[in-house]
């Protein structure tokens, strides 16, 4: 089943309260996805030149300061690690791809959940509100977040199988639905295009597909429109970008989505009840996105 939510704050005065506004949206989607949860938060503290890579350790008590020191020595730049539950965000004034590549090569025991300069991705198994509490979401500031509550159908209930999936620097994807051609598409992307995958998850294939399209020069909107042709299955996608987020439903539109917007914010969710907690929502414009049409906010197209 799964639930997805997205919130973009147009009004900068609300941005210190992003996590507090976002948390109840996720909580309302618990019944749609009680087995695991994840979210992406966009907050730019260090500017575009500072790389930010989120990593996750399945083993508890990981030596994050040690990892930061080792990364700094290997890459010739000062690196710091900030831990949150079993995740940590590593920052360094280097190229984000370099930092990511180094972690993946030197520390295969870790999994990289995101890379970029604004994006952080946190995910874990458990009830959504428990997962959010573990990462201290209600205290988080930022411009926008997208999140996912999972009821697994196509692959195992694991931290790595939880959404969002990173789809390139500062890009991520959450998905409600299931894809039916993910096996062959994964093989094609891996063998013909050199795209790397960490799991058997169908959504990771959609993320890899978007990464590949964008790498070929497509915009987010163009990549999603091409996806309507190439991805077979049921889906409502929400794609987070540095500037905002995009939403796409498959043309058959069995999977739900509702959007709402006012002067202060724009939001999407699987069901309206996830939006009911937003300030002044009763006066906001509320509508169902049309099938097969890409919607974008914050210049993400």
């Amino acid at each position, binding site marked *: 089943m799964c639930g997805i939510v997205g919130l973009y704050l147009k009004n900068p005065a609300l941005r210190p309260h992003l996590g507090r506004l976002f948390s109840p949206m996720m909580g309302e989607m618990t019944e749609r996805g009680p087995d695991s949860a994840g979210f992406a938060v966009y907050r730019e503290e260090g500017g575009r030149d500072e790389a930010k890579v989120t990593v996750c350790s399945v083993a508890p008590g990981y030596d994050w300061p040690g990892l930061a020191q080792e990364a700094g020595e290997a890459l010739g730049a000062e690196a710091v690690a900030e831990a949150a539950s079993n995740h940590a965000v590593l920052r360094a004034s280097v190229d984000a791809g370099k930092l990511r590549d180094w972690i993946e090569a030197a520390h295969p025991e870790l999994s990289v959940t995101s890379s970029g300069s604004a994006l952080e991705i946190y995910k874990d198994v458990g009830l959504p509100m428990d997962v959010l509490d573990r990462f201290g979401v209600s205290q988080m500031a930022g411009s926008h977040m997208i999140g996912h509550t999972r009821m697994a159908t196509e692959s195992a209930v694991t931290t790595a199988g939880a959404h969002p999936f990173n789809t390139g620097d500062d890009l991520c994807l959450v998905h409600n639905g299931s894809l039916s051609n993910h096996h062959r598409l994964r093989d094609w992307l891996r063998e013909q295009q050199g795209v790397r995958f960490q799991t058997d998850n169908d959504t990771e294939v959609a993320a890899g597909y978007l990464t590949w399209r964008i790498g070929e020069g497509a915009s987010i909107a163009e990549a999603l429109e091409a996806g309507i042709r190439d991805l077979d299955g049921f889906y409502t996608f929400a794609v987070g970008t540095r500037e905002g987020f995009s939403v796409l439903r498959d043309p058959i*539109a069995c999977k*739900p989505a*509702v959007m709402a917007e006012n002067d202060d914010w724009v939001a999407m969710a699987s*069901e*309206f*009840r*996830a*939006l*009911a*907690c937003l300030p002044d929502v*009763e006066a906001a414009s*509320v*509508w*169902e996105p*049309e*099938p097969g049409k890409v919607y974008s906010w914050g210049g993400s197209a």
Partner: protein
Amino acid sequence: MGTGAGQGLFLGWQRVTVETIDLDVAGVRVLNRRLQGRDEPVAGRRFVVTNAKGRHALAVGLTEAMDVRIRGHVGYYCAGMNRKADVIVEGNAGTGVAENLMSGTVRVTGDTSQSAGASGRGGLLVIEGSASARCGITMKGIDIVVGGSIGHMSAFMAQAGRLVVCGDAGAYLGDSIYEAELFVRGRVESLGADCVEKDMDERDTEALQALLERAGLAADAGEFRRYGSARQLYNFRVDNAAAY
């Protein structure tokens, strides 16, 4: 209980008390138990439901004539299986509003999500805004009147009843339709299998005008086109009966 008697209203000779039920206090089960009359009689009563907040299955399974006004957007299956009651949603409705409607009326002042009026057997569903995909899917006698437009695959396998659309209809309208009648004022993106345009005579126009008036929508029945079954699919061929 979280339900409380509000101020009385004088309607004609009869004094009718409006009972307000706040869903933030009462919750969905208490609401439905009350509206289904399982603890005390409800026939002829008026209810206002506040703080809907997109909750699912509000005012379902009602069996008595009463007025229910729900303030705010509602979730899935609102007013499902309704018999006799008149339910108004002041806002948008999620999937399957008025599904399996038996009688009475359901009015939505905003838009509805997919499968509005699904499998409805009678009564009237009025959607003042637009409805998305699969509006009136497998309808079996319900009348559905939509002020705006409807999405794709609407009236799929519609068996009886009328679907009236003041705006446009999406792709594959009336696919595999049986005896239901479809009326569209605007553009039909495409017709589904075995659905064809039909002549509209004076009696059709009169009946449609009466339905539009009952729905409270100002539209001229003469501007609508009528669609229905060509009766060419497998089930309509008597020769196929020999296969059994």
